[in-house]
């Protein structure tokens, strides 16, 4: 039985067509994944289903709902009222549907909290900011379930969460929908999620349906298959014997804030051309370790040696020399390049560390070389970062790191903001650079990706490094 039907729905914002001729039929108990990248129109479709299109949007066609539709939002912190206890918010949603008394509604919300795996006693009287991201999203789900919907729409419900919590929250949404016989429209850019949970996928691109079909058969459709290949892409690397002295050598690193010990004795070594992964949940000290390695913060005890020099024991020219051997690429491609600088000036910035003074021509030549090395045109130097896509900006950030010919590049979640296809290209690029002898320390949440790329993976847990996920690539043992 159809509970939600899109009948040739179109959405336009001024001249821009966000969604065109979109038809889809959801039956009770069905899980449909609507996948697509940024600007594919997937959010317009979910907003149209809810009748929540923003002012200025022109729509055509019709959406037929045979029962209530509820939504699980992307950012639960924005979807919850910060000044209201979460129990009262869910009870409010219950009362919006039924004639329940205040007390009955609170009882029902306690039941809903149990259903979504929250300890009702402990959580009901909390405010949203007192909860973790995962707990907040569970409250969001409870609130959506409170209206006893026939259709649940989840629009990128886990973007704000780390991968471990993501898996739990998605599993919860899917099982809640299946248990209650609701239809679930899972809107996501993540094909892996769709593959794991959906009965049917719809691939949107540029506001149009490109491919659609039931799983697992749909995985063989050409566009979806191409996406999958990029998703599971393992960059080719040419194993080279681990020779030479350690590029990075960390010994007995201890650090904390106030009474809290974050790192309690870290030892690690990286050799030229080696890619090492560092994984672990948020809040375990990965960022702290990075800041110490990069010399942005001074450790309470222990040493960080870059090519034999302790970065925390030197100053002046010696410090500049150490810094030149180590560069970093950060997570957010939108924020890691100064929007007021031209790309050429951005890439040239670390050349301030170069031992001798370089002429304008020498700087321009090095910048051009670095840009070409990351697969960009040398003429990119003239433009501002705003003119480039996320993937291109990460290439520019890599060029900025490469321009001083470092021995070590630290990658802080450098691919997590990129979609699958772009990420695969950047990983290929990193693998190629490692083959030229540059060592990489790659901090990431993405276990599958790092297992395919790295020579070794550590997990940071309770302030110590323990061997992490096994890698697909076994290095020749010396």
């Amino acid at each position, binding site marked *: 039985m159809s509970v939600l039907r899109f009948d040739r729905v179109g959405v336009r914002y001024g001249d821009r067509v966000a969604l065109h001729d979109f038809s889809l039929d959801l039956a009770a108990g069905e899980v449909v994944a609507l996948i697509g990248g940024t600007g594919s129109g997937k959010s317009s479709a979910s907003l149209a289903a809810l009748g929540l299109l923003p002012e200025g949007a022109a729509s055509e066609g019709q959406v037929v709902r045979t029962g209530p539709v509820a939504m699980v939002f992307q950012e639960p912190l924005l979807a919850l009222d910060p000044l209201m206890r979460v129990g009262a918010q869910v009870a409010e949603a219950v009362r919006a549907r039924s004639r329940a008394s205040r007390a009955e509604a609170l009882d029902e919300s306690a039941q809903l909290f149990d259903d979504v795996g929250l300890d009702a006693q402990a959580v009901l009287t909390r405010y949203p900011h007192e909860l973790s991201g995962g707990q907040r999203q569970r409250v969001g789900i409870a609130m959506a379930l409170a209206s006893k919907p026939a259709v649940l729409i989840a629009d990128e419900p886990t973007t704000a969460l780390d991968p471990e919590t993501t898996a739990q929250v998605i599993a919860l949404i899917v099982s809640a929908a299946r248990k209650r016989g609701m239809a679930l429209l899972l809107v996501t850019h993540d094909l892996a999620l769709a593959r794991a949970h959906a009965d049917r996928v719809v691939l949107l691109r540029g506001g149009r349906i490109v491919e659609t079909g039931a799983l697992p058969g749909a995985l063989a459709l050409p566009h979806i298959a191409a996406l999958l290949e990029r998703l599971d892409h393992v960059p080719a690397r040419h194993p080279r014997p681990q020779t030479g002295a350690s590029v990075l050598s960390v010994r007995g690193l201890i650090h904390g804030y106030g009474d809290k010990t974050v790192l309690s004795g870290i030892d690690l070594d990286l050799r030229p051309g080696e890619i090492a992964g560092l994984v672990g949940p948020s809040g375990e000290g990965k960022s702290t370790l990075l800041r110490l390695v990069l010399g942005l913060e001074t450790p309470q005890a222990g040493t960080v040696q870059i090519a034999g020099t302790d970065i925390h024991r030197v100053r002046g020219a010696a410090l500049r020399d150490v810094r030149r051997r180590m*560069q*970093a690429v950060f997570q957010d491609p939108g924020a*890691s390049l*100064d929007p007021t600088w031209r790309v050429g000036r951005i890439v040239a*910035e670390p050349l301030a560390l170069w031992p001798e003074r370089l002429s304008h021509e020498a700087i321009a030549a090095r910048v051009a070389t670095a840009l070409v090395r990351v697969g960009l045109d040398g003429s990119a130097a003239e433009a501002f970062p705003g003119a480039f896509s996320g993937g291109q900006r990460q290439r520019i*950030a890599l060029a900025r790191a490469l321009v001083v010919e470092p021995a070590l590049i630290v990658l802080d979640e450098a691919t997590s903001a990129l979609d699958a296809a772009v990420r695969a290209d950047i990983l290929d690029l990193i693998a190629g650079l490692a083959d030229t002898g540059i060592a990489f320390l790659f901090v990431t949440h993405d276990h599958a990706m790092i297992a395919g790329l790295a020579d070794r993976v550590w997990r940071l847990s309770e302030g110590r490094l323990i061997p992490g996920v096994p890698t697909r690539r076994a290095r020749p043992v010396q």
Partner: protein
Amino acid sequence: MMRGRASLIAGLALTALFVVPALVALVWTPWDVTAIDVAARLQGPSARHWLGTDPFGRDVLSLVMAGGGVSLGVAVAAIAAALALGVPIGLIASARRGWIDEGLMRGADVLFAFPGLLLAILLSAVFGPGAFDATLAIALFNVPVFARVTRGAALPVWSAPFVAAARLAGRSRLTIAMTHVLPNVIGPLIVQASIQGGMALLGEAGLSFAGLGVQPPAPSWGRMLADAQTLIGSAPRLAIVPGIAIVTAVAGLTLLGDALAAHLRIRRGRA
């Protein structure tokens, strides 16, 4: 977006309406503003005097033009001085958190809490009333405004990854403040400066009206209002003309500030 464009055009037009005559008045006015002609006092608008004459027989049009120059000069000088002092304070506070930040910002709070008029009276007691003390009072009043706007806009910039990258490139805090942070806060500063410019014009008019600002015979809009006060029943024109000039100028600068702010938001959104 249409509204932003309309207020930009309106803001520019209204601003030009008082800036252009004020600039012309620097080199030429229809009549000499200091020339007193008692025989021609309190005349209505005529072909000789388009806006009539005041109780001393001076040409009101010439007075409004020249007065705009004086008012504009005070406002621009005051805002420039406030920027010169407030922006470095805000930048330093944002760069050196902790007690330096606390100290600078609490100092700004005190200055901010101090009544502006009291400050002006104090300064005119020290320096004697005149354009200088009015400029200084308006400037001091605006220093904490710019210090706060700068600090507020600069804080998120300091935690941006591109600043971390600059530190990895061995740049000093000072270099980073000048090359990365300042260019990224200039947008909000321009917006705030144009809005504060409107306020400064109003402030100058108020101070001169109260006798704490520009002194006769120098013309100023506030001065003209003060002179017109006793004649408001017989010659309301003398109060209305500078009044309209003040409203036009302040509205123009405020609209301009709003339009610039909207323009910057749109650009940010696209970036």
